[in-house]
């Protein structure tokens, strides 16, 4: 019906009709799918939540004399970075924490500062403390460096998240009689609360459930700047239970994304501490969906009432990798603030901010309307159901001692 290049032509002329994934719902109700698909060019989505498989790589530049940090040890603000690369390339993971963090020794640990916080501070323009030790070589003689460093002084600073934007996720509850501390937040005993983590009807992959438009090379909103989808994310698992609308009822697709950290904003990359669990990074992600057909338009009009998530017990089923679920619940119910689990009224809270997701979808809409953000044609689509991906557990095989 429409092509991406035709839509881009309209964006360049300032004529593109762009709406958010929230606004499209009312438009379709009023005008119907056929007319809405004809009139609308792009639907924007957004999500803002903690995403642990995030990180950044940096090229620090060469000191005089030179030091080969590769193969040595290095920290940024005492947070260890991965150095198994060339001389001055390092990778910082969002969940890395200082060696002297007490972790869960005093339970529950606070994890006040980690890789995600370093990334936020760098993006905010703050100096961070680089300390590195190396073994020294003829061409890289130096064995230690301690210096302040700033994002602006680095050659490259690239956000690279190997799994972001989970397409649906568990609703976490606690059936045990004691409080537990999880990556889904603090869960009170005996079904004291339920935490979920998706922007539902605004979430990128829930608006493109069969990966018809989002693929490798898709230009996106990432951390307040521009980024790209570079691959499917780790644990990408299209073969899960789906509704008649194609929307997965379990955690399914994921995205690997990349972008220049120097043009991102700290408001959209927040270091985050999860009590008793660890440190992470809360990431702002937004994806435009080109309305190429009525089918795609119909997907973007999905409502919270039509998206279901599984309720999982994080005291026993999740840690023991048992497949049991306690039921399914819609995002409309979750967002109402109360759900019913095993006959009990349970208050809900979201790790993912719907308010911020709406803001991201709005910003992306404005960028496109102003002609500042053109859509890209993916060079390949993400693996879909037909790819036959099987989600593998780690089956342990004993290592025999000689």
């Amino acid at each position, binding site marked *: 019906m429409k092509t991406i290049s035709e839509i881009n032509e309209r964006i360049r002329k300032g004529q593109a009709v762009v709406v958010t994934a929230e606004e499209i719902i009312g438009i379709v109700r009023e005008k119907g799918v056929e007319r809405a698909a004809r009139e609308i060019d792009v639907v924007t989505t957004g999500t803002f939540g903690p995403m642990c498989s995030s990180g950044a790589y940096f090229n620090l530049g060469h000191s005089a004399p030179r030091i080969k940090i590769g193969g040595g040890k290095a920290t940024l603000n005492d947070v260890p970075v991965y150095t198994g690369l060339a001389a001055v390339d390092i990778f910082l993971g969002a969940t890395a924490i200082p060696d002297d963090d007490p972790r869960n020794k005093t339970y529950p640990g606070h994890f006040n500062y980690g890789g995600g916080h370093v990334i936020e501070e760098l993006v905010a323009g703050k100096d961070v403390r680089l300390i590195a030790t190396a073994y020294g070589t003829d061409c890289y003689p130096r064995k230690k460096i301690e210096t302040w460093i700033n994002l602006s002084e680095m050659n490259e600073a690239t956000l690279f998240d190997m799994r972001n934007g989970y397409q649906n996720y568990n609703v976490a509850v606690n059936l045990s009689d004691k409080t537990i501390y999880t990556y889904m937040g*603090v869960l009170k005993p005996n079904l004291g609360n339920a935490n979920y983590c998706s922007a539902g009807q605004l979430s990128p992959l829930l608006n493109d459930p069969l990966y018809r438009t989002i693929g490798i090379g898709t230009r996106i909103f990432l951390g307040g700047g521009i980024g790209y989808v570079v691959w499917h994310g780790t644990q990408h698992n299209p073969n899960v239970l789906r509704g008649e609308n194609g929307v997965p009822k379990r955690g399914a697709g994921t995205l690997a994304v990349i972008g220049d950290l120097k043009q991102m904003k700290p408001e959209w990359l927040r270091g985050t501490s999860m009590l008793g669990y660890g440190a992470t990074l809360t990431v702002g992600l937004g994806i435009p969906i080109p309305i190429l057909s009525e089918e795609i338009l119909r997907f973007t009009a999905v409502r919270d009432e039509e998206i279901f998530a599984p309720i999982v017990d994080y005291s026993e089923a999740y840690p023991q990798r048992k497949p049991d679920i306690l039921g399914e619940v819609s995002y409309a119910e979750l967002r109402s603030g109360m759900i019913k689990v095993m006959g009990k009224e349970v208050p809900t*809270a979201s790790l993912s*901010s719907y308010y911020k997701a709406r803001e991201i979808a709005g910003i992306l809409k404005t960028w496109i309307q102003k002609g500042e953000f053109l859509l890209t044609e993916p060079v390949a689509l993400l693996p879909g159901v037909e790819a036959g991906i099987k989600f593998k557990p780690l089956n342990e095989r004993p290592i025999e001692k000689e």
Partner: protein
Amino acid sequence: MREKVEAALAEVRPALQADGGGVDLIDVKDGVVRVRLTGACGGCPMSTMTLKAGIERILKEKVPGVKRVEAV
């Protein structure tokens, strides 16, 4: 100062309400603002981020003299 803090909190509230939460002012003393997070914010794992990156940042911007915000 309390009136200014109340006015600033009124600007923050819609954002919290969109996520099912809310905030009530308890008191303001020596630049320290004490608030109670309500609704979904009360049990939300992200409430520390909301408090520091959201409420405290905005109050510091809007109300001179605010040093920090604490949840009770």
